């Protein structure tokens, strides 16, 4: 039978290509259903016909795990990402500014995903706090419902600066990376995947996950800008 | 079948409090604008709920506040010609006409063709109401009510918007209906020619109350009602029998007080008719006149004389068993030496009893 993969929207395209490759390889059809991690998690809790869940943050995977909706011992990180400060237009990457607020002209804002709700925002807030800049920047943040909207604000020039994933920054040439946040400034940005407890096709799911974690799979993630994970 | 109405209802400052019986045939509601005619009709139809009282058609109770009976409008089996046409704008004239038949589960088109012809709307059957003239719409509304074959027919000034020739075409149909259907017809009208011709029973409303009700012939020849009907329209209604149709186009009629000659009346010899004689069309002569273009002279006795507001005198005359009203000036009354109990002659031009006033035979009342 077909495999259905519920995947965090930001990973939709990588997994879309992976599914095509996998089908060519094995004849196994894989359906990719992208949406927000919170939505997907709740749907799986409500009995959604997903075989695999790929989350954009560990929290929702934990949440499902606590509910017993994850097949034991199937959870693994598929990829990692880096967090970057971006600016409108072109420019050179450099060191992380020590006073980002000073780089924001009056009456302009720093675009981020929701800082208490959406993973990219949560990581960004943690990183800024780690750098001791959060208090100064908090009143200057424009929060968006997802990280792509934050990217759009910077791309359009509505916000001069923003915080997004490295994968996002690479995708839009209207923005440039100002600096990458140090890896230790925020919790590791990983994309955990697992087979659901109700998976109809657990064996095929397991094989697909294995392949995604293999060198071939990881090379694909790398091509989309993700950081491969090595276990 | 008699319709008994006995109800009360408040409408703002206006209080309706009426009680009357409408026997078979046509009961006319008469009264000034705002006297409550439409309200009474709406109460009978079930569109206006009385505060108290009872309405019954023979033994079928339509409304009884005490017993908690209130038959819904669509089960009252009535036909209602509203004061405004109220046609269904989205249906053709034909569908408007047949609506009641379909709604009451009647088969076929009934009298559609005959009714349409009588109303002069055969050519309009496929038209929408928005494209009708005022009078055409009103005629369709009449047809719509007639074709539903109701047990009570309610007509609120149905002919007010129509011209005289059209009225003259519709009235005989209504007369036939009255004669054939045996259903009570409640008919609102300001037009005394219509009243005299159609009504068997008359209910005069004033300010929400019944001022007087009774048989048309009694009320119209009641001198005290002249105030209500107006001097110009006061008159009496007599029952006459057709005796003969003469060659020169004159019909001989017998009334209790003598013989009348009228321009040919389309009725069989032996049949009974109603004729209306307006007070102002009656002349009084001391002696039987000669050399006058009036064929009808009846010997009469003066019953009473009543002075009106103006210079006129309403003279009530007895002609056989019937009562005639005549209106003359005081000057004439004096010149002729009229006095109660005196005898004289009532002169009426034969043509003064116009065809439009010759109604079908009286069934009752």
């Amino acid at each position, binding site marked *: 039978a077909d495999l259905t993969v519920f995947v965090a929207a930001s990973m939709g395209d990588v997994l879309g290509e992976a599914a095509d490759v996998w089908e060519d390889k094995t004849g196994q059809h894989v359906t990719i259903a992208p949406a927000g991690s919170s939505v997907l998690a709740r749907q799986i809790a409500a009995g959604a016909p997903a075989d695999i869940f790929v989350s954009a943050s560990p929290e929702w995977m934990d949440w499902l795990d606590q509910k017993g909706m994850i097949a034991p011992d199937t959870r693994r990180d598929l990829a990692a990402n880096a967090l970057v400060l971006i600016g409108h237009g072109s420019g050179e990457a450099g060191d992380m500014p020590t006073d980002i607020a000073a780089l924001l002209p009056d009456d302009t804002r720093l675009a981020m995903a929701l800082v208490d709700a959406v993973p990219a925002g949560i990581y960004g807030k943690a990183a800024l706090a780690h750098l001791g800049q959060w208090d100064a920047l908090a009143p200057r943040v424009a929060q968006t419902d997802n990280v792509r909207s934050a990217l759009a604000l910077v791309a359009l020039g509505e916000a001069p600066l923003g915080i997004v994933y490295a*994968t996002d920054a690479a995708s839009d040439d209207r923005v440039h990376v100002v600096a990458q946040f140090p890896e230790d400034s925020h919790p590791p940005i990983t994309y955990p995947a697992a087979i659901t407890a109700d998976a109809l096709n657990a064996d095929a799911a397991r094989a697909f996950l294995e392949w995604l974690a293999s060198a071939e799979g990881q090379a694909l993630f790398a091509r989309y800008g993700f950081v491969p994970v090595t276990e | 079948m008699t319709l008994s109405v006995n109800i009360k209802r408040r409408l703002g400052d206006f209080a309706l409090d009426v009680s009357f019986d409408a026997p078979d045939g046509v009961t006319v509601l008469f009264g000034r604008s705002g006297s409550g005619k439409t309200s009474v009709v709406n109460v009978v139809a079930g*569109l206006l709920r009385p505060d108290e009282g009872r309405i019954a058609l023979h033994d079928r109770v339509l409304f009884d506040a005490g017993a908690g009976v209130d038959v819904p409008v*669509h089960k009252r089996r009535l036909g209602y010609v509203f004061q405004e046409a109220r046609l269904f704008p989205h249906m053709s004239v034909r569908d408007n006409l047949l609506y009641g038949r379909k709604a009451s589960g009647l088969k076929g088109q009934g009298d559609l063709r005959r009714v349409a012809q009588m109303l002069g709307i055969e050519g309009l059957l496929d038209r929408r109401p928005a494209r009708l003239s005022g009078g055409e719409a009103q005629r369709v509304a009449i047809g719509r009510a007639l074709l539903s074959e109701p047990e009570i027919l309610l007509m609120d000034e149905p002919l007010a918007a129509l011209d005289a020739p059209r009225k003259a075409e519709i009235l005989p149909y209504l007369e036939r209906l009255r004669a054939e259907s045996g259903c009570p017809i409640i008919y609102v009208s300001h037009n005394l020619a219509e009243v005299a011709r159609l009504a068997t029973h008359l209910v005069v409303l004033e300010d929400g109350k019944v001022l007087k009700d009774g048989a048309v012939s009694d009320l119209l020849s009641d001198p005290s009602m002249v105030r209500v009907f107006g001097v110009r329209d006061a008159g009496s209604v007599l029952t006459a029998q057709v005796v003969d149709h003469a060659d020169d186009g004159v019909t001989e009629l017998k009334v209790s007080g003598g013989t009348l000659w009228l321009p040919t009346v389309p009725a069989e010899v032996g049949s009974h008719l109603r004729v209306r004689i307006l007070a102002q069309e009656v002349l009084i002569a001391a002696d039987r006149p000669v050399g006058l273009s009036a064929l009808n002279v009846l010997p009469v006795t003066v019953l009473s004389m009543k002075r009106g507001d103006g210079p006129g005198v309403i003279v009530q005359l007895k002609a056989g068993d019937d009562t005639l009203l005549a209106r003359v000036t005081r000057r004439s009354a004096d010149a002729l030496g009229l006095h109660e109990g005196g005898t004289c002659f009532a002169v009426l031009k034969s043509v003064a009893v116009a065809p439009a006033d010759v109604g079908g035979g009286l069934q009752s009342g």
Partner: protein
Amino acid sequence: MDYLGQEAWQAVALSLKVAFWATVLSLPLGIVTAYALARGRFVGRQILNGLVLVPLIMPPVVTGYLLLLTFGRQGPVGGLLYDWFGVTLAFRWTGAALAAAIMAFPLMVRAIRLAIEAVDPKLEDAAATLGASRLRVFCTVTLPLIAPGIIAGAVMAFAKAVGEFGATITFVSNIPGQTQTIPSAIYAFLQVPGGENAALTLVVISITLALGAVALSEWLARRVAHRISGK
């Protein structure tokens, strides 16, 4: 438009199917509700009135969650539906139709209600005097006279159903070929780098579809109005 891919075209077809059935199936209930609100004299009329508006007031995502909680396989209604009739709504296109119908319901009801309130009760009275029962009066007089309002309501509902996103993706997820409607597909394209063009194309397609429906309905409404006025 080859770059749209098969999945996008599936989304277009699915959106049409979903919007059509959402509109058609909710119409009778919409008419009844509108009639009850316009003419009814029952306790709870105000409550019903408010209830109908709720999907308009709540963020669509919330409506979607409530649907998931109620009609999901684990939900009280969804469970019964499955046990008794073997019907599943969640994660099916039928569920998408349900979500769209609920979101569109307030628009439909209000349009029809306004039309009913504009019908002259004197015409209904006239029909009653001709022997028509309340039901017959409704079917033969009220209904034809409110046809323009029904058409207007249906168009609003259809347009809304084509555009509905939040409740749909939350209730039935975003499974290509099964529950991925045009807006879900647009969302998926917008979440990944470089998807803007495809998204834009889909936006244009959905506007074209809905405008086609609007033009059709206007033409229908004119014909109906024409028939009513007889002009």
